[in-house]
């Protein structure tokens, strides 16, 4: 799985960080930052859930 984030779209809701703190973080203004773009399979479900709940559609997933 490959993850990309679209920072200009992010509205700092923090939901991705709450669901997958191993993959997502926030900068000083609360805007999403990616910790890894190829998360462990163990985190795939949480990453998928993050993409599904992200209100701004700022998280994109692709199969590697």
């Amino acid at each position, binding site marked *: 799985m490959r993850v990309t984030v679209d920072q*200009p*779209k992010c*509205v*700092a*809701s*923090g*939901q991705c*960080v*709450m*669901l997958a*703190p191993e993959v997502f973080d*926030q900068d*000083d*203004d*609360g*805007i999403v930052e990616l910790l890894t773009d190829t998360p462990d399979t163990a985190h795939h479900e949480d990453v998928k*859930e993050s993409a*599904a*709940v992200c*209100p*701004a*559609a700022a998280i994109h997933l692709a199969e590697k």
Partner: protein
Amino acid sequence: MTETTTDTAVDLPQHPSPRATGCPFDPPPALHALQSTPSLSRVRIWDGSSPWLVTRYDQLRALLGDPRVSADVNGPGYPHRSAGQKAGSQSRRTFLNMDDPEHARIRRMVTAPFAIKKVEALRPSIQKIVDDLIDEMLAGPKPVDLVQAFALPIPSLVICALLGVPYEDHDLFQRHTKVIVKRDSAPEETVAATTALADYLEELLATKQSRPEDDLLSELAIKRVATGEMTRREAAHMGVLLLAAGHETTANMIALGTLALLEHPDQLATLRGTEDPKTVSAAVEELLRYLNITHSGRRRLALEDIEIDGQVIRAGEGIILAGEIANRDPEAFAGNPDELDITRDSRRHVAFGFGVHQCLGQPLARVELQVVYSTLYRRIPTLALATGIDQLEFKHDGLVYGVYELPVTW
């Protein structure tokens, strides 16, 4: 002007419609009926206009995420909630009623304190606030009104600390906030309350500018007002928004959530019996979904023609997105979504809205509710309603749903 045939129909359902008598938690039965019709519906609202009403979960998410859908309250055709709300929202401009890119620019000025790590760092002080209030309640007379003694002070204390507003002034802003969120406030009343609050915050911002502290108002005063990026009035309106949104919503979730749990003893027992943060967090999400206290819907305006599931919403038409019924959509939630089940996976609920306007304070609300729900019922295991549920008065007229008073004993 384009006029469609449905526009002239006289027998459109009135919105909002009443909830069923006897069941305070379920959305109005009329909404259920509309959700089961295959197409989008039009409704008649207070000013005689006939906006679209969106009841399905997938449609609600699609439209709230669509940049062709505007939150600008000044657009003709915008479906206001009431005359008071119309006057109030048009008298001040906040990021709530702006569209991107302006919305994003302004909203980002206040997102910093709501980042997950910053909010998590507040958890111990929120826990202390909750514990102290429970100590006070236990030491005092009973029955007691849970709203005044517990539900309202918690978010109020927290948002005051975050903004840097002296809590000693809470009488003043709670009084004005009450007027702002009441659906039937007269336009003059809403404007007067908003102005009074903005005056108060403007003065506070001036003080912070000369003597900054470690809080959000100081940051706005120094980084935005002093630099000329924002006027002090604009910063004050932002403060009004955060102050009002910060305590009205969470306070209602605490009181109404407690009532819902008391009415579902098996669910309450599960919650009381756990120390697992995941179980508590799931319970909070389920209660957010089930109660969906922002029951007057998100209001929007179509900027362009938008086709959705074979129907077209024309440019200039109003849209009401009814989260309270979308959160009960059987297509979106497993099991029976009309039942409260704290073990359900409800994370995809839309109680905080969806799209770029989704609630900014949600991380803070979540932590407050998690602390409350994991503490109150364990510390007062015999907590019980001190009156019949039929004696309670519900905020049918409010922007946010809840109970006015919740007499409890133990």
